[in-house]
């Protein structure tokens, strides 16, 4: 097999040209080890994932431990019922309302709201899922690329009242990204935001229209919303990173 690189390794081959003499030189070099540098040299290091969408670099002694349960399964159900009532009140019914869950836990919370509307209001509200990964503003600073999930809309959202559903409202950057994504997908009449937990620490001028529970937190803590579909149980817990942390992680 003729291999171009050995030629150029010696600075002998101009671009794209192989002459017989150079081929001979290449054969001499075939047994040298200039080609055998392992591919792994250029591969990235190992990373530990925390939460969904975000990957934090694992450092020794940096482990998340559960600190307190702030919402049980029953609390969560009650809160979702109240949010559902508020959505109906605010929009004077459910005409033109579309639920859009933010991947991944927001999708399941949106599905719960949809079930409540079906049982209580006898209305099947269209629901879709929105992945904001490709719209993040920190994509070039994260240690590793966040995983992309599916985006699917129940139809055209132009002219609709979109209720964005997410689990935790923290810096507001996820919602900023979601608004950009929505702008690319259509032009809703209005966009409202429903979150299960507002934990403070906003970095952008964003507020929720429907809040399940406001929980004051420190930045070294993480609020984890758990849903049966992904985590086996329903509930909200506060975790703390051992060894303290400079920056919180948006769930």
């Amino acid at each position: 097999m003729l291999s171009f690189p050995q030629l150029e390794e010696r600075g002998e081959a101009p671009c794209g040209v192989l002459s017989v003499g150079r081929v001979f030189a290449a054969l001499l070099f075939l047994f040298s080890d200039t080609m055998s540098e392992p591919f792994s040299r250029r591969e990235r290091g190992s990373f530990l994932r925390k939460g969904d969408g975000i990957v934090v670099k694992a450092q020794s002694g940096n482990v998340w431990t559960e600190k307190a349960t702030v919402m049980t399964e029953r609390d969560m159900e009650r809160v979702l019922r109240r949010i559902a009532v508020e959505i109906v009140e605010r929009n004077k019914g459910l005409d033109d309302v579309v639920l859009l869950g933010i991947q991944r836990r927001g999708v399941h919370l949106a599905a719960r709201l949809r079930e409540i509307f079906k049982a209580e209001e006898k209305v099947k509200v269209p629901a879709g899922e929105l992945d904001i990964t490709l719209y993040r503003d920190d994509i070039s600073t994260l240690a590793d690329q966040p995983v992309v999930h599916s985006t699917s809309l129940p139809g055209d959202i132009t002219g609709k009242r979109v209720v964005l559903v997410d689990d935790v409202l923290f810096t507001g950057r996820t919602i900023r990204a979601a608004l950009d994504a929505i702008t690319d997908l259509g032009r809703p009449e209005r966009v409202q935001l429903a979150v299960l937990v507002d934990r403070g620490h906003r970095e952008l001028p964003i507020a929720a229209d429907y809040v399940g529970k406001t929980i004051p937190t420190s930045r070294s803590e993480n609020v984890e919303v758990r849903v049966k579909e992904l985590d086996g149980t329903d509930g909200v817990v506060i975790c703390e990173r051992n060894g303290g942390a400079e920056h919180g992680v948006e769930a």
Partner: protein
Amino acid sequence: MEWRHKDLISLEGWTREELHFFLEQADYMEELMNRPIKKVPALRGKMVVNCFFENSTRTRVSFELAEKMLSADVVNWSASGSSTSKGETLRDTVWTLEAMGADAVVVRHGAVGVPDYLSKKLHRASVFNAGDGTNGHPTQALLDLHSARKKLGNLDGAKMAMIGDVLHSRVARSDIQAFRKMGVTVTLSGPATLMPEDTGSLGVEYVSDAREAARGADILYFLRIQRERQEDGLIPSIDEYHRRWGATDSLVALASPKAAVMHPGPMNRGVEIASSVADGPNSVILGQVRSGVAVRMALLYLCLGGAR
């Protein structure tokens, strides 16, 4: 899944789990193609240089589309009309491009090993192999996996017949590697003059009778036949080739009813594939083109992102 690859030179180092994860990410990228605005800001500020030393339409266009859909800045560099014609070495060319801020170089070259060589010479930029000589064409293999999986579902245990000029095909080399990794059994067929000598070491079987290879197959993959091969005396005549190894309705009828008929393009209708098959119900050839954009988006996204 943690993504550990920065370049794509060959799929050799990829595990089956990585391929599964990658194809799933490509599924989500394909969703973007159905949107009214087919552009996301994910690679804003990244610069990708497409370096094509050999002709290419679909690979170049689909890389370019993928780069643009992810909002990367795209520079198309071609050997003709560049300083290559003034004698600049390949190494100096890519160092120049990197000094200008390239974050990735997509390279197609007629010589084996060029992408590998560049990945070692470049300090920071990613390198993506868009075809090197007769050696490999890994993004073609990824897109073929993607469209086969879309048609068939799980590929593990599937049977593939690869028919045509395997000897001169970089697509064949990459595809055999990738499909075997996914658990597919590959059988080659075609004129013995167009087969590599070491089919055994590739982990595949060779049968000269195309009907035997096609019988019960889930994937029928037809490779391009260049007309020059006849002048070189490697095939008897175009007509006879078509009768014995071409994709005809009667050959496809031997395969599994929902078999996927694939071709890397560009097609020679009436040579390696009949029009009725190329445009028939089993054909996923246009799906392959679509998958090409999706897998290249996934590749750029996964390899180019993150802090450097």
